[in-house]
């Protein structure tokens, strides 16, 4: 079974530039998560989709971050404009459904460096 695919693996941009990350979850997984993991910290949930609907985006900095999952399958996360503090690993995860008993499967992540 193919895992969660993310691209790119690494990205270096200057502050105030824009960047986009792509995620393809495991086939059939209805729930998709985007997490931000700053070095030395636990993953912080940015946004959670159930199919193509948003169920939680309370921690997404909406003035600069946006995410979409148009067809309920793959998803993109965009940052515009980037700030230095956005340097982190952006992890995408998916699960069969968002309920008890369903583990989240993570992709390899995209390491973003903002200079």
């Amino acid at each position, binding site marked *: 079974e193919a895992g969660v695919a993310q691209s790119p693996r690494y990205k270096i941009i200057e502050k105030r530039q824009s960047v986009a990350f792509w995620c393809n979850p495991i086939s059939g997984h209805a*729930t998709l998560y985007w997490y931000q993991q700053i070095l030395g*910290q636990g993953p912080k949930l940015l946004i*959670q989709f159930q199919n193509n609907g948003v169920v939680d985006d309370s921690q997404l900095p909406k003035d600069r971050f946006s995410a979409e999952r148009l067809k309920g399958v793959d998803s993109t996360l965009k940052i515009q404009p980037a700030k230095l503090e956005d340097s982190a690993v952006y*992890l995408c*995860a998916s699960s069969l459904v*968002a309920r008890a008993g369903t583990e*989240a499967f993570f992709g*390899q992540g995209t390491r973003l460096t903002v200079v």
Partner: protein
Amino acid sequence: GQQVMQIPQYQHVQEGEDFTTYCNSSTTLSNIQWYKQRPGGHPVFLIQLVKSGEVKKQKRLTFQFGEAKKNSSLHITATQTTDVGTYFCAGPPLSSGSARQLTFGSGTQLTVLP
């Protein structure tokens, strides 16, 4: 909002010693999941506990969910160098309904000295 804290933040042990990490949530959890993240890797699911007071074992790892479903622990017996990594607990608050936001703890970074 919900906060999930873990202690200790770092732990260095000699190979063969035991290790325990504790997870505490500010809110009652629907369930608790444990993940392991190797250096440079991504979180990998270890186990899920659902019932109050539940205890599960995986070889040398013992997981416990508190009676109030607000805390949990992971105990590793006789650590090995392959146990190196950061251990995270994660769980959706009971009040989240069908949304089941998966909030991660701060993690415990385990170093095993040979």
